């Protein structure tokens, strides 16, 4: 049974055959930061300083450079030999590490489900027990699909100040467990959520901000924009929202209103599909950014959406001058995608 030693805390765990390092650590009473638990969000990124791990499960949230430098995601990595893992990047205190799993379970009830577009639903859950959730704009929760053991990760779209509810934006996948459940979901039905998790948040910085979202990835941006507005943050923000067709765009008025709260914010919706009546930006969201922004030197970039969009946007913003360290993202990878990979 391979042993994994965690530095700088000097504690060792044993991993059963095929058991992910994160699961083993949590079950043996240690806490590591984690989010989606299926290699999609990058919250549990750590450095393997000795030994080998099988990290084929964590496909997206690591760059090639990070992977070759020894970084891995503990939620989806399994040790192949005795390993040493440096947890410094998680910024955990010893107290937090030794305290065990700190992700809280919340009982909620459905307040409303709204069709935002043909493929996107808005879901508002009212917190019952505990009645409030303290979270940071940009974080997400793992939602238990009622009647199953499965969980799905969704970012909060509301501002942290409105903490008696959580507002989620859900992309509907035909045959998807949660999508199927939502078809018949009714107000008052109970749903358990676990969180808050994830490390996406607006970093304190002197740089300007570019936000790039696609699909349901606008959720954390809405939360972060509302939070920035409430805090009267003075940084200039440019928000790009990409969709295949104009009917796939949602909350356009809400986004415009949030941007109107600050004289230094701009909202740019981008529609990919040709042929329809649309007088805004056209093409891939990355094309629109390249056209409008020129240099992005001196920017922080926040990305959220489907993996191909996030990957393309990440490459683009770095090419235009954003430092790699200042690109922050969540990629919404449906669990099935990784299971199939």
């Amino acid at each position: 049974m391979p042993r994994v030693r965690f530095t700088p805390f000097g504690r060792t765990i044993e991993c059963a055959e095929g058991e992910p390092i994160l699961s083993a650590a949590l079950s043996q009473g240690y806490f590591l930061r984690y989010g989606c638990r299926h290699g999609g969000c990058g919250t549990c990124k750590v450095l393997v300083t000795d030994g080998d791990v099988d990290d084929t499960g964590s496909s997206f949230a690591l760059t090639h450079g990070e992977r070759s430098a020894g970084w891995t995601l503990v939620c989806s990595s399994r040790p192949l030999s005795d390993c040493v893992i440096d947890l410094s990047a998680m910024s955990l205190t010893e107290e937090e590490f030794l305290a065990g799993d700190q992700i809280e379970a919340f009982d909620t009830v459905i307040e409303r489900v709204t069709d935002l577009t043909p493929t996107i639903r808005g879901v508002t859950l009212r917190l019952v027990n505990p009645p409030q959730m303290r979270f940071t704009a940009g974080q997400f929760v793992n939602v238990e699909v009622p009647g199953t053991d499965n969980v799905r990760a969704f970012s909060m779209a509301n501002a942290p100040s409105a903490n008696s509810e959580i507002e989620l934006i859900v992309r509907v996948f035909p045959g998807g467990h949660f999508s199927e459940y939502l078809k018949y979901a009714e107000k008052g039905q109970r749903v358990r959520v676990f969180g808050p998790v994830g490390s996406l948040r607006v970093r304190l910085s002197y740089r300007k901000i570019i936000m790039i979202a696609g699909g349901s990835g606008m959720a954390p941006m809405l939360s972060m924009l509302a939070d920035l507005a409430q805090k009267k943050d003075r940084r200039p923000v440019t928000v790009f929202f990409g969709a295949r067709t104009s009917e796939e765009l949602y909350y356009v008025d809400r986004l415009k209103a949030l941007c109107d709260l600050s004289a230094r914010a701009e909202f740019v919706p981008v529609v990919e599909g040709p042929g329809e009546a649309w007088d805004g930006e056209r093409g891939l969201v990355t094309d629109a950014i390249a056209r409008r922004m020129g240099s992005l030197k001196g920017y922080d970039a926040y990305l959220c959406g489907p993996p191909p969009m996030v990957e393309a946007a990440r490459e683009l913003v770095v090419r235009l001058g954003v430092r790699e360290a200042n690109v922050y993202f969540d990629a919404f990878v449906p669990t099935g995608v990784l299971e199939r990979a």
Partner: protein
Amino acid sequence: MPFTLEQIHDKTKSYDWPFTVGDSRPKQPTRYIIPPKGKDPFRMLVRDYMKMEAEKDDRTHGFLDAAIRMRTTENADPRLMEVMKLTLPDFTIAEFEAVSAAGGIIASVQNQEIRQGYQAQMMDEIRHTQLETALRHYYVKHWEDPAGYDIGQKALYELPAGLVGVSAFLHFNTGDPIDCVMHLNVVLETAYTNILVVAVPQIAVANGESALASTFLSIQSDEARHMANGYGTLMAVLQDENNIPDCNRALERYFWINHRQLDALVGHQAEYGATVRPWCYRDQWEEWVGDDFVSSYMERLTDFGLQVPERVPKVAEDVTWLHHTTAMALAIIWPLNFWRSPIQGPKDFGWFEANYPGWYDVYGKFWEAHAQMAEPESGQIMMQQLPSLPPLCQVCQLPCIMPRPDSPETRIFDYNGSRIAVCSEGCEWVFRNWPVAYSGRKQFWSLYHGRDLADVILDLGLVREDGKTLVGQPGIDLKRMWTIDDIRRLNYEVKDPLQS
């Protein structure tokens, strides 16, 4: 009933005992309200700390012994060794002022835990001055051209290049002791710690000098303690919301000043005092000051009311150019320096342009012209080509051509009957808010207004042992070094730009 040794030890480490030794009245009054209990994560007795530090000293001095036998300076890059004639005494003056700063806190606050932390720091700073002086002594004896290493500490107080550092580090022991902590422990030793004591040794090693790295890494090992002192003090004063406006004002002031002086001097050493440049100064700053200090350290403190200084975006903009302009200015006034200025050539131009696009258009032609005038036979110096000397900023002492010579942000105004020049809006803000701290400073140029440059050089003692050859030179590999006679032939008269 007598106490057991264990009880005495526990009591000592509890730091809840009253202050009974000496005069308990603060020597330097503070306007901050300081709670009686503070946070010192180290909680180590001075006695135990001393043992640890003595061991570190032994190892560093042991390395210097070995360095002599290994003749490490023979492999050192001359650019590094020459510019270090300015940088090393700058470090030492900073350490020296920090000794005083720590003493100021100890004598001024009634908080045992904070006092304990600064006791350790005061000893560290003394240790650092000793280590740096020993290193300088090693260079005086073993570097191929010791001229300048021998007079560096004195020269700092007398020459334009030195006044930048002197005026920077005076803040550590002037004014309110908590303001001093803000500059020394929070800005310099936290925000700039890696730039100073990680990157500088890295550059030294990359350029063939390991004795400096050994000394500086020993110094660096103490910096975590100093950061903890800053953090502990800050957390203590932030407990009282009445202190928050003063904390933010102090941070605004010292972040700006520190940027002006440190980014100019250290960036100059990192890129102009090196042939091998491991990474560009701008990137160091982005990572260590921008990401680690602003986005990480400060993020944790904003919940307590601390705010990111308003001028951080301006600092981030200027940090791209400030040290290039400083290098240019120092090369222009080379006769008033105490090192040989490294001439930058085509290979350097390529590196600068790759890392700072647009660099050549601003600085390239200058360095080409400077190279043309490097040999004494050229019969000219760059100072003669200027329409006038730039005034030195009343606050940061940098020449008023910042951030770039093609777009200076100089401001000149009258204050109490004197003409005052500052290099920027930030320095004017500092001056207007704390005029007493800065208005008494004399312009270096005014001291020598109307005098021949040769007489100025002699007055400042900037000639070598032969009584003729200058200490400062415009290049390292000159066919012949400049003498006082070469300068005398120029008939160059120093003119104070604020008088003329």
